[in-house]
């Protein structure tokens, strides 16, 4: 089942042409990795799936992004609704300076859900899914900033899960974390795959190889190669892909 579709997508920051004619299809309940050197446009592309570029001055796009058969840049699409369906986890853990509990329920509260029982259930469920529950269940009222970096990132994932999105975008979610926390996040991604469609931007090629089903390689704003991860890493079809994954540039 195809979940996400990019159709002839071009993007610009002012005069900078940052994405060039991208066409790509992503299947439901899979993990897709975007790799490529810094500035190749992979993060910009990722952020187009929940329109996080909307507030950037000078951002412009052409082409279509389609999720579940609907074009998301259409005028009548409510961007708030879109983002509840397409959650995002950022490079650096960014919990709100509030309690753990308040962080998880934030997305529900802004939708106007106030029922304490519902909220408490969601908190527990999301934290369990994010593999954080055992560590924080007795200290839900503690400040989220008191958690370690890895815990904070899992909290951010729990916060995203709480609003029950169907897609989760991850922008280098482990790049600021230590190896142990990184492996926890990777395990988590693997377990979330059953219920969510996950797209992850990563700098780390081993990580892409470990966790993703398909991998897309971007270079200078172009999608150079998109294939099953195993094939892309073992038999790259394009020379530039080969150069990149063998470490000749990057």
């Amino acid at each position, binding site marked *: 089942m195809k979940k996400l579709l990019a159709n002839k997508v071009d993007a610009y920051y002012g005069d900078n042409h940052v994405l060039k004619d991208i066409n790509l299809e992503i299947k439901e309940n899979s993990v897709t990795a975007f790799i490529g050197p810094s500035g190749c446009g992979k993060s910009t592309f990722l952020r187009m799936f*929940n329109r996080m570029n909307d*507030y950037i001055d000078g951002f412009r796009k052409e082409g279509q992004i389609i999720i579940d058969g609907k074009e998301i840049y259409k005028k009548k699409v409510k961007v708030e609704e879109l983002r509840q369906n397409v*959650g995002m986890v950022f490079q650096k853990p960014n919990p709100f*300076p509030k309690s753990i509990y308040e962080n998880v329920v*934030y997305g529900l509260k*802004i939708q106007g859900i106030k029922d304490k029982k519902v909220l408490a259930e969601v908190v527990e469920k999301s934290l369990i899914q994010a593999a954080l529950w055992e560590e924080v269940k007795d200290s839900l009222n503690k400040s989220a900033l008191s958690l370690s970096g890895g815990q904070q990132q899992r909290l951010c994932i729990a916060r*995203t899960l709480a*609003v029950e999105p169907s897609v989760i975008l991850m922008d280098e979610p482990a790049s600021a974390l230590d190896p142990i926390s990184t492996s926890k996040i990777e395990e988590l991604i693997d377990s979330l795959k059953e219920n969510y469609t996950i797209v992850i931007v990563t700098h780390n090629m081993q990580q892409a190889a470990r966790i993703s089903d398909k991998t897309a390689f971007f270079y200078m704003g172009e999608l150079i190669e998109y294939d099953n991860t195993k094939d892309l890493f073992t038999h790259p079809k394009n020379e530039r892909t080969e150069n990149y994954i063998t470490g000749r540039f990057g």
Partner: protein
Amino acid sequence: MRKTKEKIIEALLSFSGLITILTTIGIIWVLASESFSFFREVSLIDFLTDTEWTPLFTQKHYGILPLLSGTFLVTMIAVMVAMPIGLSIAIYLSDYAHRKFRDTVKPMLEVLAAVPTVVYGFFALTVVTPFLQNIIPGLGSFNALSAGIVMGIMIIPMVSSLSEDALRALPKSLREASFGMGATRFQTAFKVAVPAASSGIVVSIILAFARAIGETMIVAIAAGQQPILTMDPRDAVETITAYIVQVSLGDVQHGSLEYKTIFAAGITLFVFTFILNNISFWVKKRYQEKYE
């Protein structure tokens, strides 16, 4: 030779730094010594509890409360004007406006703070008071309301500028997290940004208070010279600063008790602004520690 010259220059420079300390010592010494001789003639209890302030009349009373109530009445009105407007500006500029708009508007707002206060006094007396008299029948030509409103306009940039700095100092990732959950700019601003920047915002409001308490010319021109214990904004009131101006304009003999009253009033004012300023330093310091 070269070394001595360097030493002399360093000594000269450090002396200039020392001047600022001497200024503080001077202020405290002047206020304290004149007040001390004031309090040898007037008991501190009377000063703090008497509800009349009539040092210039034959029937003399030395209760600071009417001056304090006048000061706080005008200050409250000013802050009630400046806080909602200043904060809304700060939030609008940091969370809604385009960068170009912000860069143009901010220096324009600073103009409000650059206008001499005597000009604001004129504004209060000749424009705002007549306007208010149309709305509030029986309003006198001197009243706390007009002075307070105009003072509020004057301190808007103080609140907006400092609050906006605090809001913009927040890491970008915080707002992105909120937008990423489907929050609007309004929700992001009020549920995430404002609470996260609350200490900086509190600092801006405290400093606005301190500024309003010490403001002189607007109240001297537009609020009146009646030291009455009142909380009715329609009344004419006298603030601490306006009283000092009133005495300074008259012929008061140096060394007389009347002369000393302005220092007693002055030290009261100084204590309040000193406390407010130091609370703001303290809040600021804690805030910095949190984010570094």
